[in-house]
């Protein structure tokens, strides 16, 4: 800054905070000129990401994902349903994204956040169209019983890039999911087998004798970027999202095939080159996320 005494430095600091509040766009543009962001990240780098599996003990599969300060808690509970006639050997997945009032000052108890149903729909589209889950693995007795997996994702702290963190938490929860061993009892209901030998008709399918995991192929990973004039900022914080309003979300699967591209309007109309740059940034990010997820899974298995 300048060479001033202690009181001069203090007033210099307060001016920065006030400038950030009053003229946020100019504050960010001063940083972008130097190719850096206020939290000292280069433009293409995402925030520190961590994944922890098994966060919820009462759920059949769960995970907590943190990207910077954005925290998501995903849990899967399995219940038994009667499959519909046209897909009698398939189970089903119901995905729901919640933003409880604790996560952000803009959410009120009576009025849910505007972005919550948008992210919820994006999530179910991305997970189902990526083909990560083979629904036939969720079947129990063809035509009579199948698993319904209720995936609930709660945002515990909202600081930008909600979709990325939610997708990461959902994918991690599915890789942690263990289907319990079940039998059909005399009333025709499916019940969980307890440890001791109980009388009951065992299902003919040997797969259900013990706990098993789903096989996941083509796992989707995503990155949200913000476009502003000629700059592309990867993984925005909530402040950046509110100041620069053109997000682009790219979802790629583990073999770098495009699952979904989402650009909901915004003041910047992007040329093909900008979109290709976003996809390239996402490709890099997919490699990082794959490593983080496989480290988390192997940590679980060591325990």
């Amino acid at each position: 800054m300048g060479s001033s005494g202690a009181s001069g430095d203090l007033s210099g600091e307060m001016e920065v905070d006030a400038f950030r509040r009053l003229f946020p766009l100019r504050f960010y543009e001063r940083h972008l000129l130097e190719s850096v962001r206020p939290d000292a990240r280069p433009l293409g780098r995402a925030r520190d990401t961590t994944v922890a599996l098994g966060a919820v003990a009462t759920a059949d599969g769960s995970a907590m994902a943190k990207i910077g300060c954005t925290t998501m808690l995903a849990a899967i509970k399995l219940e038994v349903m009667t499959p519909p006639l046209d897909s009698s050997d398939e189970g089903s997945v119901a995905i729901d994204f919640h933003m409880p009032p604790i996560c952000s000052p803009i959410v009120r108890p009576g009025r849910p956040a505007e972005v919550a149903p948008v992210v919820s729909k994006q999530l179910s589209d991305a997970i189902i169209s990526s083909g990560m889950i083979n629904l036939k693995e969720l079947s129990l007795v063809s035509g009579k019983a199948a698993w319904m997996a209720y995936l609930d994702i709660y945002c515990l702290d909202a600081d930008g890039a909600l979709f990325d963190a939610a997708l990461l938490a959902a994918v991690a929860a599915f890789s942690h999911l263990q289907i319990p061993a079940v039998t059909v009892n005399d009333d025709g209901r499916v019940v969980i087998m307890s440890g001791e030998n109980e009388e009951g008709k065992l299902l003919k399918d040997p797969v259900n004798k013990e706990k098993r995991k789903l096989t996941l192929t083509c796992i989707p990973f995503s990155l949200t970027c913000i476009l502003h004039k000629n700059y592309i900022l990867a993984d925005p914080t909530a402040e950046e999202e509110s100041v620069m309003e053109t997000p682009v979300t790219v979802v790629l699967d583990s073999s770098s095939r495009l699952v979904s591209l989402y650009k909901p309007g915004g003041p910047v109309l992007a040329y093909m080159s900008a979109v290709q740059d976003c996809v390239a940034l996402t490709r890099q990010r997919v490699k990082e996320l794959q490593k983080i997820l496989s480290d988390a899974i192997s940590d679980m298995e060591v325990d």
Partner: protein
Amino acid sequence: MSGKTATAPTTYSPSPTQKKRQPIFKDVDWIRPDGRGFHQCRPAFLRTGAVNAAAGSAYAEFGNTKVIVSVFGPRESKKAMMYSDIGRLNCNVSYTTFATPVRGQGSDHKEFSSMLHKALEGAIILESFPKTTVDVFALVLESGGSDLPVVISCASLALADAGIMMYDLVTSVSVAVELCLDACSKLGDVMRSCLKEAASASQE
């Protein structure tokens, strides 16, 4: 997947139904299932600063009961509210769908929000923030019993983390039969040491 049908399919949980609860006070030498003494609380884990987006927040874990509380404010009251020369307190308690063993049972506790309000309003110095509202939101992540006391204790810790002026911290313990006040004072000591730790950590 539920694209076609408008109504969700009915599902049931495959967990075995609860066995009939045996009467527990039959035996004079009865011990609690987790081996605790009659006047003993579960070991507590308390941490402030759980949520970055909130003015103050706290996370509490008492055995299997896990709760996060965020405090926002003091911030502008809703336009419909009339002028008030003391502050307002707004509380809300909600459950996650996976908090209870049976999915979706948390909505049975709608009265917790007003009970939390009654517990906290006596301790907060409402005159220190006239015309504005302090919002206290709680989310129960896992319900392992004694939920409301954990929410109240965690909420007063979050209010202290937010810097809201209070006469004192509010602690809460639920008891089944006898009245026990020293459990509350022990809990108060634990909470004060947690706040001291958080304050000294931020000074470093």
